[in-house]
């Protein structure tokens, strides 16, 4: 038994309407016989059979519009008899119901309401498209307000150098920032840096004043000690974080043997004042790993805003309680020695509460390291509006399987807490993997 199907008579023919059967069930068909007449968008066409046989049963009725490929009639070989009527009913009926493609029914339906299905589809589509288009144009507008006009070349250079564009005046078309403007700003920045160092040196020479009198980061309200105000500030920030930031946590155990060996060898050749701490490696590794996951180096303010500079907020705990998180600016551009110098500068000042407010507000990602003899792992709370905090537990010896052998190795458990609004675990994992790679190559840090 074979089916005679609605033939395809042209690439542009999608369906045909049966107008007339030319053969009756029981008729003997020869190849080339006209079996039916079908109406198409090009007019009435006689359709022929290419195989002989006896027309067994109609599968569609006159007036039915069916897509190309729909069985129209079943044929049986010459010399066989028809299937008993009862069986036919059982067999054919389901075919009609099931095998008629859904499209066909849809076409019939849409013809009843007198809308060609194709047009209807496109109508629906355009209707759907509309709101989304509006949103996108709105987005565009608001985006444009904040947009800085800059040539692609200038942007490339600025990004490479992590140059903040907000202060640069453009001299290109329509006030766009061009290469020359960026280069000028970079030269200015270099000078500024130079001045900053000078300032610091002068500051260092100023005799120390008693703690009480020293400037605090947040102006302390009358009657409240600096410590109390820091505690309060930390409390507020952490509560806000807990309330608003959906944290996700990832952890990775990192083998520190190579890093520590390198550190030991390096420090051996150095005077004590020039020696490095493991934290330096952590800071530099984090800064470098951001390349693999730039979205972690960002703030969440009306959406995610990626930061060009990598300023690592380093958690300094105060012996009197509370923490301060001064930034190590442009950590990716600093050498490990320079980072150590930064730490030497910043930690004592933090402890003495002599930080500039800018140093507390410029971090783009936070790093907390428990140092020796601390807990094995630390699960940080993100410091808003940042979107990530990386936590280093104490370096401890743990059994590690190496080439099938069990060995004790110094390891550190690194955790990443990420803002799930901004990034997801995949980004975080990529970051931790990169971090691991960097720590396995300490000499390149």
């Amino acid at each position, binding site marked *: 038994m074979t089916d005679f199907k609605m033939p395809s*008579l042209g690439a542009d023919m999608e369906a045909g309407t049966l107008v007339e059967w030319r053969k009756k069930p029981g008729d003997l068909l020869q*190849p080339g016989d006209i079996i039916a007449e079908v109406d198409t968008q*090009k007019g009435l066409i006689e359709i022929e059979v290419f195989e002989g046989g006896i027309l067994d049963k109609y599968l569609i009725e006159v007036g039915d519009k069916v897509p190309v490929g729909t069985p129209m009639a079943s044929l049986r070989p010459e010399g066989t008899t028809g299937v008993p009527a009862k069986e036919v009913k059982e067999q054919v009926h389901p075919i009609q119901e099931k095998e008629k493609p859904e499209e066909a029914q849809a076409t019939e339906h849409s013809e009843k309401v007198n809308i060609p299905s194709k047009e209807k589809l496109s109508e629906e589509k355009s209707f759907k498209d509309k709101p989304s288009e509006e949103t996108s144009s709105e987005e565009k507008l608001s985006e444009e307000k904040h947009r800085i006009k800059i040539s692609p070349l200038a942007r490339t250079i600025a990004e490479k150098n992590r140059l903040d564009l907000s202060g640069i005046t453009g001299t290109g078309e329509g006030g766009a920032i061009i290469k020359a403007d960026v280069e000028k700003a970079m030269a200015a920045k270099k000078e500024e840096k130079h001045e900053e160092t000078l300032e610091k040196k002068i500051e260092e020479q100023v005799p120390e004043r008693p703690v009480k009198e020293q400037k605090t980061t947040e102006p302390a309200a009358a009657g409240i000690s600096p410590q109390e105000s820091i505690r309060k500030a930390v409390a507020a920030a952490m509560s806000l974080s807990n309330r608003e930031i959906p944290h996700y946590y990832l952890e990775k155990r990192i083998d520190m043997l190579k890093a520590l060996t390198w550190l030991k060898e390096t420090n051996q050749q150095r005077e004590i004042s020039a020696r490095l701490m493991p934290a330096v490696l952590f800071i530099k590794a984090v800064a470098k790993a951001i390349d693999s996951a730039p979205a972690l180096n960002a703030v969440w303010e009306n959406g995610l805003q990626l930061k060009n500079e990598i300023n690592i907020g380093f958690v300094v705990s105060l012996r009197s309680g509370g923490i301060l998180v001064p930034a190590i600016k442009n950590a990716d551009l600093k050498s490990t020695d320079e980072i150590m110098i930064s730490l030497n500068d910043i930690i004592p000042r933090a402890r003495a509460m002599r930080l500039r407010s800018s140093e507390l507000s410029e971090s783009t990602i936070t790093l907390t390291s428990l140092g020796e003899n601390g807990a094995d792992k630390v699960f940080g709370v993100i410091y808003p509006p940042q979107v990530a905090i990386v936590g280093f537990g104490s370096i401890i010896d743990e059994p590690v399987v190496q080439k099938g052998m069990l060995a004790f190795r110094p390891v550190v458990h690194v955790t990443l807490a990420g803002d799930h609004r901004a990034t997801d675990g995949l980004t975080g994992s990529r970051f931790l993997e990169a971090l691991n790679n960097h720590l396995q190559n300490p000499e390149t840090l």
Partner: protein
Amino acid sequence: MENQKNIEPQKAADLLYQMLLMRKFEEKSAELYTKEKIRGFLHLYIGEEAVATGVIQTLKPEDYILGTYREHAHALARGVDAGAIMAEMYGKQEGCSRGRGGSMHLFDKEKNFFGGNAIVSGHLPMATGMALASKKLKKGNITVCFFGEGAAAEGEFHEALNLASLWKVPVLFVCENNLYAMGTALRYSHSMQELEKKGQAYGIESAAVDGMDLLRVMEAATKAVDLVRSTGNPYLLVCNTYRFRAHSMFDAELYRDKAEVEEWKKRDPIPQFREYLLKENLINEEQIGEMEERLKQEIQKAVDFAEAGTWEPEEDLGKFVYTQNSAS
């Protein structure tokens, strides 16, 4: 069928076989089209077989042939492999144009078969140019260009005939007048319906022949080809014929009467020729039976070849645009 000169029994059988092959091959193509194995346009030559058969059997292998988009039969008559033609219509890379052309663009350089040209009349100037090259290079071959009567209304027809006559180049223009340019009847296209007279306007020797009668076509073609070959001048041969099938597959045939088609079918060139051969004892029923068996096998072989063919990898898409990147 009287007054025809005798033909060799073997040649008679070959010609009958060739016409039957064209017919059965195209019927199979139509079937495969409805099954979506063949796509695009499919123009069938059914009814007109005597023209291609009669003209091409007079040619030498070195002669150039240019056809239209209704050229399956011409390719078969020229000896292009049926499997390669079928594979071409499937779009497989084993096709005679590597699948890039399809039904309308059959090419076979080895057989000097230059398409498969689907812009009506666009290939006529090329035919004149090819004949010009033959003349300049003293090749001694001729160019035969098939086209429909629709093409004779195009400017390029007139330009090509004018140039051919002006330059006196060996080209035979064969007009297959099947009375309809798609759906527009001859009387609605041509102010002067005796098409052979259009050749005379350019000083080109012309003739018209009953294109439904193989023997008459052979006779007229032989005369025309001999003349072109011996004088090096162009010739216009109009073959009056009829296609039994629609213009292409998707054609409701609103423009002609069923009765008219039935009338022409009575003059089907294939049964006509078969009856003649039987009557003249040039063939017997047994031989015809064998022939039909052979045909069945050849067509099945062609279909199997096409089915087994392979799709050209998509990364090769950019090929055949410039010779440089056309290595296969």
